[in-house]
């Protein structure tokens, strides 16, 4: 479990990126952290793994304080950054040098992941394309079997088939003893993958709710005409009509559209809070 209490953080002491952010993340879920560019998504991830330290407040990850970067903590968490690093080594040498640091690392599982992601090379890893390098690191991160896996913009640099393979792999590797936390601004890439949505904007937590709860509280539908503008949280005109997000007062079933949800939440933070607190 990750428990963040009253987190304040800023690269500049005068301008805080986060102010009194509190958040609780449970094991056994795939979280999608959504936010605009510069909203501080990567910063939040770095606070969780101990690369950045809170200015105020506390971060607790499975009983550890990330700031201390203890080996026993780092064995339980793995960060796949937006830009990955692979040394000038072959796959086998990489396994031999990096795998032993993670007690639950499974070599066979790693090889299977590489197969699934279609990463095959006898050459050194730094000769691979960026997308291939990223898939390699994703495969390694998953095979480390850490309790917490943090992914920062994992689909950046992946082609469309690779994005599909990525979603499939993440879904297949999820279990009750691990938590996967994916930060992205490419919201569509997380469709049908995440079961909990976290939205941050302007250093505030706007939403932390399960996809099921979002479906209960909000309706996502296409209408010919927007009848009540005041009731509409978000509207977007498209070819087939207008996509709208409204409060779900009549227990309607609808499929959550993450892009529309994000716009609805960032445009109406106060109303969203009221709806989800009711």
């Amino acid at each position, binding site marked *: 479990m990750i428990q963040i209490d009253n987190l304040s953080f800023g690269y500049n002491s005068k301008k805080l990126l986060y102010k009194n952010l509190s958040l609780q993340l449970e094991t056994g879920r795939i979280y999608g952290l959504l936010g605009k560019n510069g909203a501080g998504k990567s910063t939040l991830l770095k606070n969780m*793994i101990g690369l950045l330290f809170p200015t105020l407040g506390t971060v607790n990850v499975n009983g550890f304080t990330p700031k201390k970067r203890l080996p026993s903590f780092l064995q339980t968490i793995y960060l796949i950054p937006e830009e990955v690093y692979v040394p000038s080594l072959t796959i086998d040498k990489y396994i031999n040098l990096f795998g032993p640091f993670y007690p639950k690392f499974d070599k066979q599982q790693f090889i299977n992941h590489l197969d699934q992601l279609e990463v095959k090379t006898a050459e050194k890893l730094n000769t691979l394309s960026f997308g291939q390098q990223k898939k390699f690191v994703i495969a390694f991160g998953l095979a480390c079997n850490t309790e917490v896996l943090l992914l920062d913009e994992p689909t950046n640099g992946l082609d469309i088939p690779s994005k599909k393979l990525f979603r499939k792999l993440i879904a297949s590797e999820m279990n009750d003893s691990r938590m996967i936390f994916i930060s992205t601004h490419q919201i569509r890439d997380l469709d049908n993958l995440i079961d909990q949505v976290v939205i941050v904007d302007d250093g505030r937590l706007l939403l932390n709710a399960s996809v099921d709860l979002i479906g209960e509280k909000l309706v996502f539908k296409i209408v010919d005409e927007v009848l009540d503008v005041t009731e509409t949280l978000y509207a977007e005109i498209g070819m087939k009509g207008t996509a709208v997000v409204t409060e779900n007062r009549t227990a309607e079933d609808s499929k959550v559209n993450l892009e529309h949800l994000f716009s609805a939440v960032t445009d109406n933070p106060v109303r969203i809070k009221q709806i989800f607190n009711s």
Partner: protein
Amino acid sequence: MNNTFSVPRFALLLKKTLLERPMQLVGLSVLALAVVFFSYVLVKSLVGFEEAQVISYVLGLVGGGCFLASFVFGYFSSNAMGSSFLTLPASHFEKWLCAVLITGVFYVLIFLLFFHSIDNLFVEIYHKELDPNGAFYKQLYEQVQPFPYDGFVAKKAATMFVNFAGAMLVGCLYFNKVSFIKVALLIATFWFGSYLINLAIAKVMIKNVENAMPYFLVWIQVHTSEGRIELPAKIMDVVRILIQYIIPSMLWLLAFLRLREKEF
């Protein structure tokens, strides 16, 4: 689990550090040794043996050591590499010890072995080339001897190495990019600044000041002769202990503390 030091984990880390960037690490060491060799050969043929020994020894130990020191923590030039290094499950102490061992022990041993070999080889060649029946054979023979590792230059070079390499280790953790150049500039600025301050103070207090070395020595001109004023012996001892032991210890320890507090 021991979160400070574990032998198997440290062995893994050392192996990973040495093999992760072998070309750079070996390349850098080979380059430093090549510079030592060529500077020895060049200065020997242009100036003389003693100068060649001094220049190549200082270049190899201090220059090469500093280069390597700037490399061992040189993970922070890219976001991905820095994150990977800091989040690798090993303790700060192990990561620091690894850097200290590579810079302060492995490189020094390799350099000393290499320098000792080439120095002895060149001296032996020189001795063999002398004519044993020549008039000045004994004089010429004794003129060129292997580099004395307990001499003034060796001691000064060791002091420079521990100070500058320590500064490089700390600097790499403060400056993420082109840290070698930035730290070298800082050291040069500090050295030149302390020289100017010493010179200014000496000129205020003493007449006929010719020159003043940083912190310990002032040259004065009396008529046509030149004299030197040194610090009193007791104070000089304090300064020497400070420069030989205390400042380097603080720098190498500061690297550990900085690594622990490093945000990236």
